[in-house]
């Protein structure tokens, strides 16, 4: 079994203009999706992120607010899942509610390193 990081970009993070009820409803879909993954023993945690952030740049370690990227690239959160391979991970990711809001899921395999 491998582990994959799913990075959520855009989607609801880029659309703040919704009613609290709509947002609540949408969040419950995320919860239901992850619950199902947990039941199948594929869910290994993950967290939603707040909108604000800081960025530290280069060797100078300069700190600014940000990142200021286009709405659809804003990272709203991540989870880690267990999957056989990329195909499996992609199938799982397609179930993500972010696609209702035209969002993006970046799927990256976690590098299992043995020393």
């Amino acid at each position, binding site marked *: 079994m491998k582990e994959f990081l799913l990075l959520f970009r855009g989607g609801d993070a880029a659309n703040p203009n919704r009613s609290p009820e709509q947002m609540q409803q949408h969040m419950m879909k995320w*919860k239901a999706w*992850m*619950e199902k993954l947990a039941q199948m023993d594929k*869910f*290994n*945690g993950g967290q*939603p992120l707040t909108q604000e952030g800081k960025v530290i740049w280069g060797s100078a370690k300069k700190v600014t607010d940000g990142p200021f990227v286009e709405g659809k690239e804003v990272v709203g959160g991540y989870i880690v899942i267990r999957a056989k391979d990329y195909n499996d991970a992609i199938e799982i990711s397609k179930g993500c509610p972010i696609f209702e809001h035209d969002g993006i899921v970046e799927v990256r395999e976690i590098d299992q390193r043995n020393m």
Partner: protein
Amino acid sequence: MPQTVDHLFRHEYGRLVSVLTRIFGTENIQLAEDVVQDTLVKALEQWKIGGIPENPQAWLFTVARNKALDVIRREKIHRKFASDISPLLKSEYTLAPTVKELFSENEIKDDVLRMMFACCHPALPPESQVALILKTLCGFSIEEIANGFITNDETIHKRLYRAKQQFRTGDVQFEIPSGDQLLQRIDNVLAALYLLFNEGFHSSSHEKVIRKDLITEATRLCFLLTEHEQTNLGCVKALLALMLFHSARLESRLDKDDHLLLLEKQDRSLWDRELINAGTVFFEGAMEDDSMSWYHLQAAIVFQHVSASSFEKTDWNIILELYDLLCRRYPSPVALLNRAVAISYAKDIHSAIEAIHSIPEIEKLNGYYLMPATLGELHFRKNDFVLAKKYFQDAIALTHSGAEKKLLEEKISKCDVAQ
């Protein structure tokens, strides 16, 4: 603190500890109790200033829920929570909604039952089971439990400590057992509830309200079992009937000076008809079942007594048949002793005395004051006052309760007068 708030706290304590134990896992039962304690302390502080909220129950639940969220966030690195929901508790995507769902009324009702089974885990000694029930499900303080069992705080601390150790090792499943497991485990639960009930019943007096609380709690918990489809078994209904029948006679057991009155002398007009009627409903329900447990037979015997409008009208023949059945299926020296009393009324005193002397393993009754007391009573009824007095004196040496001693002393005086 107003009576209603105290009552509310006791009532909600058990429900809150149960749902938090479900969420945190049985290993963390102490954490569950701590969170509930904190919630009640906060309630006391805020309600003193701002008054009791409109929906105090909802207030308690909301605060407990939020405290649970804080605790989970703080502790998730060090602790494992309930394994089936652990990953959901660790992610902010799912933490709050998962906890909220588990705080639903239906879930909580099931959790209380799960807690009952957990507290009555067969690996725990019976006294620990009962102490744990009183602490976690009934919201009793250590001191109150100690008073209930006429022992000291330290003894109760030890019993609870041992019980929670068992939970800490993580071997206690938080579930309502099913199938064969259920039939086995329900025995433990019923035994603990009956132990609790008897503790309250046999030690009660007009002043000792705490003992009445034990009776109430045992009855209430047994009733909860009947409300759940899975646990509404014949033996459960039978035990509830038994408790209700006994409770109906509570007021008549003692006269105004706290002297014990035997069944013969009890004023049946003081018997609580409502409790008898309620007990009868459950008794009939139990009889509809295919099973025949120890509780069925005991309830049937007591049913005969509470159905008789007077001692003289008691149908001792049926009672003797029931004891015959009881002693065949669940033989014990105590049951045979009680059967002998039935013989003395259904047949004759001589046969009863013979029956007592031929009880197998009679040595097992050596420390039991009712053994010589019963013989004393039988000989008294036969006008053998010398022998009766000797037996009553033997009995006094074995009794612990003041009320029982007084009763026996009265009997002895009667022997003296009659000679």
